[in-house]
């Protein structure tokens, strides 16, 4: 513990400069706004703002971008509660009881409790980061190419099996990402692949334009397609002067354990590669319903049903920072974009980062403490203000975001090829979204594709061409077993489901 507090003090001395605090405030506020708008998540928000951080110090830039990342978790819930529209996929579970609460006239207490829940989840998450990151970083120094390959595979496997409803579509989405990742110089042979003589493609396809295209333009096109721009802005009024704005004693007492359960579940889900905030929040909700003595109340405006997913998604967004910092392996679209930002600043995430750049790592973690404090204040005191943003008609928001996406992409490398790529992937993202494919799997596979390919080939070179290396090294063996069991259970569950359906069909057929 002593170690952690010294490290944190060191971090606070970095984070508490006026300059860093200023950009932290900007980051978390932008995050709140990004979270508010449906179809516009933290991944797109971070990607678009990357070029605008060029003039900053690396630590400041990352503090700002990370602020957007976890700030979005706060903002996303506001719309979940008020208009039953999650601003972000990680806040879908918050609509289940959040919206009924608002319908019961308890919008005020729901908003305050979600802010508190987010704060507790975020803060517990950050405390656990402090405890786990150095340990994992130390442990990870015994990870070689074979271990990295297996972790990447496990992450992608979990993402494709857990996220989408359709396994095949998830796998196809990931394969699209792998395909894009093959462009450029092959790190093993040095050969150029699919560059078509264009020097701009030698370095491969940079994933930020692809991420902005898929998450930003693609989502916007989808929102226009479903007619969101035609909807009149709903006039929402929330005032914290009224007496029933604040939660009562019963709310606090009832959910005191929920805070901790949700935080732990969320954090674990965040640390695991490929799961993250969305799964963490859904998991926390169902666990809470299971342990409750009155599960029938859930879904009808139960405070615990809001607190559980809210603590979980914030703890998960903190948890996802652990593998990002200590292994350099992101678990979601948003952390993948953060990874890109880190690398752009010459900060190479992995076990060495915490040794070589302790000021940066602890400064970032300390800024997350401060950021969560700011967010709880902002989201309680300034909710009426943020709700005003929702009055802006969607048709006015869209062009602004499109312009930001285009300018931001061009500003990255002043490259027209990348700007065209943005438009192309925007259309692709629209198609993927409309037909139930997973843009997050594509971006993650694109980011991890080169790493997966290289570590696989390195393992084979080291193992003299034999796959034995994946079972000879002890950590590799454990990972291989986990990987195979995930595959085994996925297949088992599917077969079971199929048999059940067949039985059902047979029964239906017999009765007919």
């Amino acid at each position, binding site marked *: 513990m002593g170690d952690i507090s010294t490290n944190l003090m060191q971090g606070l001395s970095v984070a508490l400069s006026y300059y860093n605090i200023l950009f932290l405030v900007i980051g978390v506020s932008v995050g709140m706004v990004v979270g508010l708008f449906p179809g516009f998540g933290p991944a797109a928000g971070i990607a678009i703002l990357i070029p605008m951080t060029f003039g900053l110090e*690396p630590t400041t830039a990352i503090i700002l971008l990370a602020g957007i990342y976890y700030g979005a978790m706060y903002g996303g819930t506001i719309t979940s509660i008020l208009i039953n529209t999650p601003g972000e996929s990680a806040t879908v579970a918050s609509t289940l009881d959040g919206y009924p609460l608002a319908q019961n006239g308890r919008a005020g207490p729901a908003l305050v409790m979600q802010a508190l829940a987010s704060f507790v989840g975020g803060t517990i998450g950050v405390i656990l980061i402090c405890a786990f990151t150095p340990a994992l970083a130390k442990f990870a120094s*015994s990870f070689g*190419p074979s271990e990295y390959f297996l972790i990447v595979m496990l992450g992608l496997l979990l993402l494709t099996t857990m996220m989408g409803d359709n396994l095949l579509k998830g796998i196809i989405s990931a394969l699209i990402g792998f395909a894009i990742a093959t462009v450029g110089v092959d790190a093993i042979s040095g050969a150029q692949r699919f560059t078509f003589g264009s020097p701009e493609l*030698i370095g491969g396809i940079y994933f930020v334009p692809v991420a902005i295209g898929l998450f930003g333009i693609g989502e916007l096109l989808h929102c226009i397609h479903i007619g969101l721009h035609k909807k009149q802005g709903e006039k929402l009024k929330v005032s914290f002067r009224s007496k029933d704005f604040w939660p009562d004693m019963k709310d606090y007492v009832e959910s005191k354990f929920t805070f901790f359960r949700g935080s732990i579940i969320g954090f674990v889900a965040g640390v695991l590669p490929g799961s993250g905030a969305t799964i963490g929040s859904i998991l926390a909700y169902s666990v809470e319903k299971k342990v409750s003595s009155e599960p029938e109340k859930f879904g009808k405006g139960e405070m615990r049903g809001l607190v559980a997913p809210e603590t979980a998604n914030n703890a998960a967004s903190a948890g996802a920072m652990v593998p990002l910092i200590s292994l350099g392996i992101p678990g979601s679209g948003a952390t993948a974009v953060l990874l890109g930002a880190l690398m752009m600043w010459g900060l190479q995430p992995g076990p060495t980062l915490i040794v070589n750049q302790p000021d940066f790592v602890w400064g970032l973690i300390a800024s997350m403490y401060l950021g969560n404090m700011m967010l709880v204040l902002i989201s309680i005191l300034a909710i009426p203000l943020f709700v005003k943003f929702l009055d802006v008609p969607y048709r006015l928001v869209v062009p602004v975001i499109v312009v930001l996406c285009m300018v931001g992409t061009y500003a990255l490398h002043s490259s027209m090829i990348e700007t065209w790529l943005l438009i192309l992937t925007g259309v692709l993202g629209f198609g993927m979204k409309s037909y139930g494919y997973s843009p997050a799997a594509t971006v993650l596979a694109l980011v991890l594709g080169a790493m997966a390919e290289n570590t696989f080939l390195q393992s084979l070179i080291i193992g003299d061409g034999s796959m034995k290396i994946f079972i000879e090294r002890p950590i590799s063996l454990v990972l291989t077993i986990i990987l195979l069991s995930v595959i085994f259970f996925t297949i088992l569950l599917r077969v079971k489901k199929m048999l059940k359906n067949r039985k059902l069909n047979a029964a239906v057929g017999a009765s007919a």
Partner: protein
Amino acid sequence: MKLLKKALLVGAVASLAMTPLTGTAASGYPSKQLNYTIAFGPGGGNDLMSRTLVKILKKYDLFGGQNIRVENRAGGSGAIGFNHVAKQKGNPYHASSTSGNFLGTPIVSDTGWTYKDFTPIALLAQDAMFLVVRSDSKFKTLKDLVEYAKTNDLKIGGTGAAGPERVVAGLFAETAGIKFTYVPSQDDGGLITSLTSSSLDAIVANPSEVSGQVAAGNFIPLGYSERKRSTVFPDVPTFAEQGYDFDFALPRGVVLPGDVPTEIRDWWVDTLKKVVETPEWNEYLETKGLSGNTIFGDEFAIYLDKTDKDFRGVLKRIGVIK
């Protein structure tokens, strides 16, 4: 009006007085803004060196009071940015910094330019390589590695398939008369963990990448690939002094577009000689673990020829290029 005339007159007199001091025929240079192109993205090694250099030029007013515009033109491992500068043939108001890819990228890719399309000014720092082993391994000297390689499959890692790391590993093996398996990593982080995890026997890496692990006592550098010992790590012996007669370092220097007049080249050589004397420059070398052995003008051109030949030679012998 009168005041303006006076100011002009003073200026003219002053410039007249200055001319003999700054050089023979570079009079009037610089009279315009300088465009400093960085062929890589912000945050990387080349970016840091370029920005440090420009900061020093501005701080000590070494560019004749003219503005210096810095621009990152990243892409294609330097192909885009260097191409932009190469196209400004004869224009002395463009400059760029070189690093490993300045030689490496044209060798492996069809870029449309080579180092010959530039006017070399100065080599300001050397990007030489360390050969590093784990401190708990049985290798204490290069000789131990050579002995081991005679009966075992020695595995040496480095960043990239055709980069300077591979050239250094290849030259070492050639001079020692041994065989080894080269394991390329995609990035520096992956390279370091492949050694910490005991997946490899040794790695070739940039001193700045491993200095943290060396300071922490996890890694030991056994050889340094420059001809002279590094000014920052004077305790690490060179390959040559241990009997493996080769040296290889990539140039971190300054180039102008091709066909720039000799007087202007000399003006830049004089100016950069002042830059390397500043405390800011030495602090930069220190923090990045770069060696401060400098070469100017023609000597730099000869150095580029030799390094390019070594680079191509090794890559050809190991079959990466034809």
